[in-house]
């Protein structure tokens, strides 16, 4: 299965159903939810923006890597884009395998690589009224913009 991006709400039940196989004894699913804080700041909402074709091809490459590295029956991943609120499901990864060890390992591999490699950007909107693109601050931004600086 491929890694996809969607602007519609993610349906984890349907996604997980697609992983079922009579030879699979274990399924591990990861969900990334929009949480109400980050590095000590109260977060009200998020925007996710993506370079969709490259995010999908790179995401599918990560799924292929997981299939090659771990003994799995099925893998899948979806990332949402657009304006999200606290509690919304932002990213879902699911793995089915015969035994649970490889399901845990593959699921973690996929989400770790996806977070590091997919061209997806997150803008946080804070309770203070400020907002920022995560990981895109540079030295001096705080003075320049009066937005909170983010350590690296």
């Amino acid at each position, binding site marked *: 299965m491929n890694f996809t991006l969607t602007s519609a709400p993610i349906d984890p039940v349907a996604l997980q159903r697609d992983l079922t196989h009579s030879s699979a004894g274990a399924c591990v699913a990861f969900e990334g939810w929009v949480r109400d804080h980050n590095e000590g700041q109260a977060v009200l909402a998020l925007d*996710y923006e993506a370079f969709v074709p*490259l995010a999908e091809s790179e995401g599918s490459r990560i799924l292929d890597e997981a299939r090659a590295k771990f003994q799995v029956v099925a893998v899948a991943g979806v990332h949402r884009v657009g304006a999200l609120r606290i509690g919304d499901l932002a990213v879902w990864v699911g793995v089915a395998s015969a035994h649970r060890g490889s399901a845990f390992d593959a699921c973690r591999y996929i989400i770790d690589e996806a*977070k590091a490699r997919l*061209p997806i950007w997150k803008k946080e909107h804070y309770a203070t009224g400020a907002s920022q*693109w995560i*990981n895109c601050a540079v030295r001096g*931004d705080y003075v320049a913009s009066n937005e909170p600086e983010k350590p690296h």
Partner: protein
Amino acid sequence: MPKLSIQYFAILREQRGVAQETLTTAQTTPEQLYEELRSRHHFTLPADRVRAAVNGEFVAPDAVLPEGAEVVFIPPVAGG
């Protein structure tokens, strides 16, 4: 001089003020092109924190830009 199409995302889109443009440039690599655009549009991100994709695939900073290339500069991703 090659004519290129450029897409901007996230902080670069906001700082450029448009999501897409076409231009003709004397620069021959993504790194050179980014430096030209950075000085023109006052992008805050230095070149070493921006990756490039050409025609939908990641490329090295010193790859040669082909005529008609669709170039995307990739700011640091959300990670986390």
